[in-house]
């Protein structure tokens, strides 16, 4: 079942092409967009969140066309969105802010709306700070507030832009757990430039670079692309696209190995670096 269907989407801002003929499908589970800063991930997520319309191409979300006003409203009723730079009315308490977003989500009856606000606050572990003003919260807690508002109304499609950015390792693990739970039974599309997050969470990934989808498939398929192309050596190899000194003093080289190189199993990060280092190659797995 395909919840998100993007076909040949192109979006430009002045002379900048943010999306260039991107095609993407996403169904239940977590789909990850991986790519460097400025790659076009945010623009693609904004298109999926119905916040931006592509200049060209077709988008279908939950079987509806977001270009049609009535369909767009129906989509938004079943959509949760956490933008990259989610802003807050900092004078609001956590409860007040989430309640405000719940009003925008057309939850007009006060009692059930407050019940729903309490539900997402409990789900994201914010109960202890529910009455605190958002300006008094840490960055990680604010990110949780952002996730909580996205979960209002138990949406079928959850769009999360860099949900783990700026979080410390422990907070990132907690966030992964929450996103993983959110992905059970619904479609989550998230972006990250952290390959660990993508490896841990996503069944499907798309690597976006310079507005184009360089790869779509599973993390295992992307990792497999680096088979036989990662090796260790006592020095940085001139054949490597990228190499770095590891904790044990040897160099991890990624690229085209020389003869008799000591090959090691690749990681998703290796494959991602290879893909970024070879922008001409585009691979799409079905």
């Amino acid at each position, binding site marked *: 079942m395909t919840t998100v269907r993007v076909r040949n989407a192109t979006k430009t801002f002045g002379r900048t092409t943010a999306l260039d003929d991107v095609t993407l499908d996403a169904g239940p589970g977590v789909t990850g967009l991986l790519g460097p800063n400025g790659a076009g991930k945010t623009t693609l997520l904004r298109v999926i969140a119905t916040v931006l319309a592509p200049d060209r191409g077709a988008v279908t979300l939950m079987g509806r066309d977001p270009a049609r006003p009535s369909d767009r409203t*129906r989509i*938004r009723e079943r959509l949760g*969105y956490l933008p990259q730079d989610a802003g807050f009315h900092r004078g609001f308490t956590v409860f007040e802010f989430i309640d405000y977003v719940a*009003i925008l989500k*057309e939850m007009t009856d006060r009692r059930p709306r407050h019940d729903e606000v309490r539900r997402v606050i409990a789900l994201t572990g914010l109960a202890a700070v529910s009455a605190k003003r958002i300006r008094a919260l840490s960055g990680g807690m604010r990110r949780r507030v952002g996730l909580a*508002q996205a979960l209002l109304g138990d949406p079928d499609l959850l*769009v999360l832009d860099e949900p783990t950015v700026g979080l410390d390792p422990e907070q990132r693990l907690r966030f992964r757990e929450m996103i993983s739970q959110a992905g059970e039974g619904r479609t989550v599309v998230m972006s990250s430039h952290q390959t660990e997050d993508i490896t841990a969470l996503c069944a499907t990934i798309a690597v976006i670079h310079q507005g184009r989808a360089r790869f779509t498939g599973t993390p295992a398929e992307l990792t497999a692309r680096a088979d036989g192309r990662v090796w260790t050596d006592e020095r940085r190899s001139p054949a490597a696209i990228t190499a770095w000194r590891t904790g044990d003093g040897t160099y991890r080289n990624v690229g085209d190995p020389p003869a008799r190189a000591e090959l090691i199993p690749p990681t998703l990060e290796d494959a991602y670096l290879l893909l970024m280092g070879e922008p001409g190659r585009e691979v799409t797995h079905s």
Partner: protein
Amino acid sequence: MTAWHLDPEAIRRYARGSVPPGLAASAEAHLMGCATCREVIGALVDPRRAEAIWHEVADRVDAPRRSGPERMLVRLGAGEATARLVAATPTLRGPWLLAVAGVLALAAWAAQVDDRFLLMFLVVAPLGPLAGVAGAFAGGLDPTREIGLATPYSGLRLLLIRTVAVLAVTTPIVALAGLALPGSWWPAVAWLLPTAGLTGAALALTSRLTPVVAVGVVATAWLLVTAPAAVAGRADLAFGPGAQVVWLAVALGGGLGLAVTRNAVSIKLGRSA
């Protein structure tokens, strides 16, 4: 652990909610420390009633406190949700309103010092409310704009709620500044219909443009129309009786245009996205 327990009849009456408040308070004090009586009463209380009471308590404890303006709006008949949306309008905050009041006070003061600046006040006056409408949807001022854009709340309704709220607050500020103008009462009110006309025109453009751009287009057109008249000292060209009829027509036309294109109104991200 206590040595005594509540009378079974008292427990039944308490569970039904039919004991007087004094006895209820004393029963509750005992129940706090007596697991045995709590167990007994647990079996007697209707789960639906317990659920309803719990909801009532939870709602009173953590429900958002209404701000002063929200309470006033609810008293005036606005819905609780609408009052909250108005209260979150960024250009209804103190610093913004102070800035608008400051600019207008300066313009009014200049007009008092030299009545050639009277026209400057009339040119500036409609821009205050208009800028407030634009600012209500500007990304830099509305921190939750992008979250709001992905919600099903009607763009038209939000546009109208915020526009009315901004006009309701800024128009009296402009009117107060107008009272400080020298000469006849006419300059103090001559900005009203132009303000209505410019707002109507901006609203009509929101089916195609973002509110910020729509206001920018209208404000630029306004300056192009009024600046030459101001330089030439011909207030009547922009603010005379004939011009007032034109502004009234623009306001009505804008309203009509908004009504016709109401289904196409959708608050959008600007190019900065």
